[in-house]
């Protein structure tokens, strides 16, 4: 127990020291992570993290959500309403299936498995829109008054390509899943019959159905689902993501102006170094253009600003070791900014939840242009902890 407490205390000290160093640096420089292509650009553009995002699958449910929000707000403007949806659910729901979702051509009955091909543009079909209506002060002047802000954005994967072997393995696993799922359904026929014989007019009808489905034994198809999930999380050989967004500010009751606009793009190339897909050589390029009509400059004056950030990294992602080099450059109104950096990053996975990280390199901001950070990240979950920025 003492050993555990000592380890925890030591780790906390190390983590704290790292956090302080990191915050001092990050306050002066952008990070590569901040350039990531957002899935919900309408929210990223306006710096909001809505706690409740509606996912309307029909135009009717979208309109209903807006009407309810307007009613709650007591004015013509929706009261902090946010929604995200893929329009394909509105216009072509019949075309949605696991095959179109994963970019596989749908096999026809009797067709050989090897005929299944990959549609590298399948992500376009699932382009998502994000919409936000918020009341927030996004003009950083001396007047603390919130504006009525409408923000809309779109995110899509323009291109996503996997190895042929990946496509074949995924299709085989899906076919195996279907075959086993039918057997699973068959082995639960007694429970299905019990559901069929329930009285639909019973007030606890849904509860009775839930109680019976909880008893379902889904055994044969479960390993196939795991295989499919393992294949889905493998990195594509090449992917290209794009997001765009714009936000209108209600400056007064009769004046609406475009306050911010943004475009994000990200390209990634991942070369698998082993068959298990745990080791990669990756190259990522990220770009972001942000227009802010009301940006505060270094002289504390509010004005239009065109910010262009470009960055990238390349490195090896090995079983327990990550080694990468990343660079980041920023231009404001066409002039190179001071917020540039080129650093080397090393991360060692000690156990499932503990990582030792090091960042070394050149930061063009501040008087000390060399970065040297060391730290430990740990967590209680199984997800990978982000490197210190």
């Amino acid at each position, binding site marked *: 127990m003492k050993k555990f407490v000592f380890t925890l205390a030591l780790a906390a000290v190390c983590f704290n020291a790292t956090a302080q160093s990191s915050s001092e640096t990050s306050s002066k420089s952008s990070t590569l992570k901040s350039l990531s292509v957002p899935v919900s650009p309408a929210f990223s553009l306006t710096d909001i993290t809505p706690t409740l995002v509606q996912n309307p699958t029909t135009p009717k449910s979208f309109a209903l959500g807006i009407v309810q929000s307007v009613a709650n707000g007591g004015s013509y403007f929706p009261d902090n309403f946010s929604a995200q949806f893929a329009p394909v659910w509105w216009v072509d729901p019949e075309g949605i299936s696991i095959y179109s979702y994963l970019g596989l051509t749908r096999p026809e009955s009797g067709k050989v498995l090897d005929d299944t091909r990959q549609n590298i543009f399948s992500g376009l079909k699932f382009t998502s829109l994000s919409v936000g209506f918020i009341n927030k002060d996004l003009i950083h002047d001396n007047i603390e008054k919130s504006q009525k802000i409408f923000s809309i954005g779109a995110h899509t994967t323009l291109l996503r390509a996997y190895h042929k072997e990946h496509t074949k393995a995924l299709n085989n696993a899906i076919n195996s899943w279907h075959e086993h799922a039918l057997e699973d359904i068959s082995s639960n026929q007694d429970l299905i*019959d019990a559901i069929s014989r329930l009285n639909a007019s019973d007030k606890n009808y849904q509860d009775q159905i839930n109680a019976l489905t909880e008893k379902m034994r889904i055994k044969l*198809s479960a390993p196939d*689902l795991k295989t499919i999930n393992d294949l889905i999380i493998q990195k594509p050989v090449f992917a290209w993501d794009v997001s765009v967004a714009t936000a209108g500010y209600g400056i007064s009751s009769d004046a609406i102006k475009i306050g911010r606009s943004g475009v994000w793009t990200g390209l990634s190339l991942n070369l698998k170094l082993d068959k298990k897909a745990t080791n990669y050589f990756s190259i990522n390029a990220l770009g972001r253009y942000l227009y802010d009509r009301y940006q505060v400059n270094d002289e504390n004056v509010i004005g239009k600003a065109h910010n262009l950030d470009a960055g990238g990294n390349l490195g090896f992602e090995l079983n327990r070791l990550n080694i990468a080099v990343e660079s980041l450059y920023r231009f404001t109104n066409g002039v190179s900014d001071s917020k540039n950096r080129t650093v080397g990053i090393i991360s060692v996975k000690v156990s499932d939840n503990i990582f030792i990280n090091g960042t070394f390199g050149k930061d063009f901001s501040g008087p000390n242009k060399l970065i040297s950070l060391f730290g430990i990240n740990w967590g209680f979950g199984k997800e990978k902890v982000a490197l210190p920025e």
Partner: protein
Amino acid sequence: MSNTYNIGTSNGQVSLSVDITTVGLAASRASVLIVSDDSPGVPVAHSVDATGDIANQAIGKGTFLKGKRLTAFTLVNLTGTDPESRATEAVAIRGSYTLSGGDDGAKTFNSPLKSYQDPSVYVIFIIDLV
């Protein structure tokens, strides 16, 4: 409230088609049974791929089906590692069921029951054939 399809006096083949809309893996099987006894359900149709759809096909003659209850049962497995995304996808699942060949002609039903046991969703359509 229960669904009904009127076979009436038709003695021809009754057909069923099932269209499942989901980004998850889906498998469907349809069966009929007599509600008043304990006999097991008799399978009459099933999906051929992981869309979970059942293409329009004959499921039996009117005289065989009349008085029985038809159940189309679909198992959907949602993929991905994010439970919130799976919950959203579970809500978005739709099912459309069309019966034809009886006195009611072609009739489509769009309101199946759903039971969500993450990562599985059971989509169930039950109809009395009268």
